[in-house]
């Protein structure tokens, strides 16, 4: 939308909202307006005429429409589509932890008797944490070349653990594969 369109839209909105009718009342109830907004029950022509004739009802319509948009955008903020991260420093051998850029995921590396292990950890404060834990969501971690590092369902603590699948140690491997990694929803 260009600047003039935005300005004219603002003007039109203001003109609509500024109108007053003496002894105006709420001509349609919230249930009717919400059903029309949701598209479940379109307004009848008489209801549409009532909406246009009552600036007060139109203002209530605006309030409900904006509240609905806010709820929707809050819900989409909570939805998670994936997080990416980078290998920050030139780590040699001693890479213990990587974090995604959004800070909600961390990837830990532990050296055991049988070799390296990686542990993915979800920050419980992440806006999408509750939904992922409730669903025991499947997640997958890939390196910069798209190869699977680990994948599976998160446990109740928001963790996922697996043996390190590559020959090179984590620091060397990530450096060779573009120094990037991704955490994404979906089965391995």
């Amino acid at each position, binding site marked *: 939308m260009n*600047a003039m369109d*935005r*300005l*004219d*839209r*603002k*003007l*039109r*909105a*203001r*003109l*609509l909202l*500024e*109108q*007053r009718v*003496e002894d*105006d*009342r*709420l001509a349609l*109830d*919230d249930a009717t307006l919400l059903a*029309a*907004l949701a*598209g479940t029950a*379109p*307004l*009848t*022509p008489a*209801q*549409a005429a009532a*909406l*246009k004739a009552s600036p*007060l009802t*139109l*203002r*209530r*319509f*605006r*309030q*409900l*429409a*904006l509240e*609905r*948009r806010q709820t929707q955008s809050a819900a989409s903020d909570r939805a998670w589509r994936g997080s990416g991260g980078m290998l920050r420093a030139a780590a040699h051998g001693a890479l213990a932890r990587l974090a995604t850029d959004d800070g909600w995921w961390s990837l830990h590396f532990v050296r055991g008797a049988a070799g390296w292990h990686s542990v993915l950890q979800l920050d419980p404060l992440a806006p999408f944490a509750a939904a992922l834990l409730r669903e025991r969501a499947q997640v997958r971690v890939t390196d910069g070349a798209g190869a699977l590092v680990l994948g599976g369902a998160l446990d109740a603590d928001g963790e996922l653990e697996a043996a390190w699948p590559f020959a090179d140690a984590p620091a060397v491997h990530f450096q060779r594969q573009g120094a990037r990694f991704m955490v994404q929803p979906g089965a391995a």
Partner: protein
Amino acid sequence: MRLPGTRYQEHGWEQVRKLLGECSLEVLTPPLLARACDPATAAEALSAYVDDLAAALHAHARRTRGAAAANSYGDSVAELALALACELRARPADWSAFSAALAAEYGRDPAFWTRADAAGLLRKKLNDLYAVLRDKVDSDNYQVACGRPCSPNRIYAYRMLDMAHAQIARLFDNWEANRAQVGAILGREVTATPIEARQLTGIGACRAEWIERWSASQEGFGDGPGPLHTKSKRFEALKGHPEKIQAMLAEIGEYETLSATLDAAWMQDGEDAGAWLDDLDRVLGEVSAAPGYEEQEGEPRDWLDCLAPGLDEPLRLAIYLKVLGPADDSYPPHWLDPASGELPTMQALAARAGVSLPTFRKRRDEALERLRAAGEQG
């Protein structure tokens, strides 16, 4: 007092009222008053009055008094005064009442505004005008915010109950000095600190029967009959209905608690304040798609088409000036007066259009009327 959506019910109202009075006295010159008195020119006088008043209020916006907060949502005194001035323009019936009151004064004494007491008289009429208007505006705001019916009189009743609670709380706090009236309110003799004084932690904890007994006791202890005991019909709906009083007290109390924890739930004009228009067009579009709907001939389909023909730049800018104000982030820089950084004044725009200010104002108002009619069509 705070209620959902209301803006004019807090301490700052006094300042808003005073600023409106002061700026109105500046702009209501004798010639304008004469036009306001005459039914033939009253509408034109309203338009001129609101324009000049808005300019005067804009000038106050950055001064100490105008910039002070007038409510707990952070609206300034000047902003609220300006919003009320815009409301007046949209409510010609209120202006008619004001101009009828002026005309009556003029009928009694054609030279009344040259008299020494003219300012006081005018201020009184302006106070009446805006006192009515603020409750109309807030009852609308309340309905928009919560979807429940309301009326200006109901807003007035909420305010009376809020005031009554404050008085009762004061009496309870000083129960020793007001032993007899506190006793009348509680319906028993008070000999020690009443437990009710500690229980009254807010308006939500105030009991309807205390309000009723307080009002009844005012005749004997106060300056005259209490609000529920006058001959006025104003609070007729509440008389003898403690349950209604209790529900209203609870509502004020609940909202006070709620709004104390919310920072400005007020819907600001954000980045895409017009997004709801898409919803409106969609909802109205679904109606016309429904069977049995006949599209009316001659409805303007494209709203902007109505803007374009015959609308030269001065007129277009005058419309923005009127509706969105002299400064708006969306204005392209070449529209702005380099000196002020704002849109040119009406005077300057009229000069650019090559017509007199009244003629230009009339053209602008006519164009606005067409736009308003077109705006509803989507």
